[in-house]
């Protein structure tokens, strides 16, 4: 059974179609990247999954049960994009509060909180007020409250935004660890690099519509192995008016090139060698970034 399934979700705000006919599914134990430019409808979709806002039509199932069931939503851990803490509350009290909001009984959450606090190295700040904590530690608490009830589905909205490198690493660690447990993880981001490294599958949306989805391998294969990474030193004249190049993304001495269908990479290499010194030449699958840009432009 799929951990999360969206069937033909629609949501509009006035004249704006925020989400249009969106369907997707996430299997247990997978990391699912929910990608798209700002304003694509990612947060709206996530809020509909959490039943914070209601879809105009369509159905959302968590482990096969509609998300209107509160028991199902208690099995979800959610880290919103807009996140904060109760500044005046003590750390321990806040953790207990959120654990109870997720349906954990007082008798059940003590051990869990103890274990998590230990694991995050925050045992000695438990009795402090939130506002006395450093920004980094407050972020840790937010991550902790997302996973404290060991959910079956974790939804992270732009989890790496504003995180310091230590906490970004911690989030990655937690994501991978939860994946091992069989938890499905959905995270939205517009940072393609982190998505590319972590995700098993992705869904790319733009202007509220799904433009691409599937396992990351399949997605890349669909774009063909006709991309070339080329590191060079010298003039980049060969990039212009070259019959074999369909598009390129030049970073000065590193360029990612998409070839025309049927074009031979060697022809490009020959042209490049005449103008510049080549230190790397590799035929690769397109990067997610490339796919993202290409698809968004196309739409």
């Amino acid at each position: 059974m799929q951990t999360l399934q969206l069937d033909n979700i629609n949501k509009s705000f006035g004249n704006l179609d925020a989400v249009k006919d969106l369907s997707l599914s996430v299997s247990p134990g997978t990391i699912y990247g929910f990608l798209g430019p700002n304003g694509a409808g990612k947060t709206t979709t996530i809020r509909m999954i959490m039943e914070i806002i209601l879809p105009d039509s369509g159905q959302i199932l968590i482990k096969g049960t509609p998300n209107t069931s509160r028991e199902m939503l208690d099995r979800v851990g959610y880290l919103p994009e807009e996140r904060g803490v109760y500044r005046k509350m003590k750390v321990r009290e806040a953790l207990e509060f959120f654990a109870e909001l997720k349906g954990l009984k007082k008798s059940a959450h003590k051990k869990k909180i103890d274990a998590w606090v230990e694991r995050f190295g925050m045992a000695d700040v438990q009795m402090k007020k939130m506002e006395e904590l450093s920004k980094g530690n407050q972020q840790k608490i937010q991550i902790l409250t997302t996973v404290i009830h060991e959910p079956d589905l974790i939804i992270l909205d732009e989890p790496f935004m504003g995180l310091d490198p230590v906490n970004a690493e911690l989030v990655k660690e937690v994501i991978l660890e939860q994946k091992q447990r069989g938890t499905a993880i959905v995270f939205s981001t517009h940072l393609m690099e982190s998505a590319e490294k972590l995700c098993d599958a992705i869904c790319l949306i733009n202007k509220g519509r799904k433009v691409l989805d599937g396992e990351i391998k399949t997605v890349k294969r669909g774009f063909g192995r006709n991309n070339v990474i080329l590191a060079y030193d010298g003039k980049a004249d060969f990039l212009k008016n070259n019959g074999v190049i369909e598009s390129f993304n030049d970073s000065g001495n590193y360029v990612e090139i998409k070839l025309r269908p049927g074009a031979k990479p060697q022809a490009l290499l020959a042209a490049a060698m005449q103008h510049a010194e080549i230190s790397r030449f590799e035929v690769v699958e397109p990067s997610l970034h490339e796919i993202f840009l290409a698809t968004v432009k196309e739409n």
Partner: protein
Amino acid sequence: MDKFLTVLRREYLSRLKTKGFIIGTILTPLLLTGMMVLPGLLMFLKSDKPKQIAVIDQTGVMWDSLTVNLDDRNEAGRRLYNFTKHETLPAGLDAAKKSLAESVDHGELDGYIVIPASIYEDGNAEYYGKSVTNFRENGRLRSVISRAVTEKRIQRSGLNSEQIHQLVRRVDLRTFRVAEGGQEQADEGHTQIVVWILVAFIYMAMLVYGQVVMRSIIEEKSSRVIESVISSLKPFQLMAGKIVGIGALGFTQYSIWALVMGLLSLYGIKIARVFAPKMAASNFNLPAVAPEILVFFVVFFVLGYLLFATMYAAVGAMVNSDQEAQQFVFPLIMLVIVPFLFTSYIIGNPGSQMAVILSLIPFFTPIIMFARIIVQMPPVWQIALGLFLMVATIVGMIWVVGRIYRIGVLMYGKRPTLPEIIKWIKYA
């Protein structure tokens, strides 16, 4: 239900333990007690020294009457006034006044009275004093002088002093309140005091705790913690938990105050006797409040609080900061101030048509209907109708505000316009 209780507990306990709550809870009864005891205390302190007043009696006959009639004494049996006769001769009136004014200035005298020979005709006497704003004292002097003058006028017409005494005897108007069942109770302004105190408490419950609800919501919005919370329970559960939790806090505070006041009225006099034996001789009891009025107090406290807390919750959901909230809060405050302003009218005319109409407007009911109940029990149907309208308004408000809340708490940045809010209510 569990989550509602979790929110309720957080709102209640996190505030119960704050310094602000503890200080406010302890300080308020102290202040109130102080306000009640202080006037009495001041009276004793003040009356330790009788007022020194000089009298210039140009009629030559008023002096005796004045000193006899103004033999006022305080509860401890001390004189309030000490009179000295001042002769105008040989220097004349102006010189006498001048020297007396100097004495007043030096603090040897508190004041002086000039009774001119023409007083029988024009009825004018003069009082010069360091302070002439004590209206009770001025009134007392006026009535004694005027009585003395009246007596002399009648005496001139040939009656003897016994007859005069009978003629000018003062009438004392004592007031009784007709309570339920036609029983009469002596009432010297106690009802008024009870109305003002209890109405002020309801007024506070609606405004103060309503604002606490609003701030609590604004705080969750501005700290951005709201979305994590709202994803774990229904917005309505959150709003309800908040309102009930903070209401319970208010109830706790009021119960503590009621307990302190109750103990004071039971043991206060005994305690006072220990610390200030003189004072305890007098009887300043706390006005007694009938049990059914306490029941109505609780009912109007709860309903009034629910109505206003719900509206404050809507304001909290619509705005981003306390400053932004101010202009939304203003109409709410007016809804409480207007009936409060009518209270003295209601005390005077509890059964008037105006009072009936005002008491049936749901936003005014907690204050005006309650004031009417204390002063003069209105017909049962009016109370029932008032309560019904209030409950119906609260239910309607909760429905509307629940929708505003659901959308509003996730809106950051721009403050919504009225059409936008109407859209929220429609589409939530």
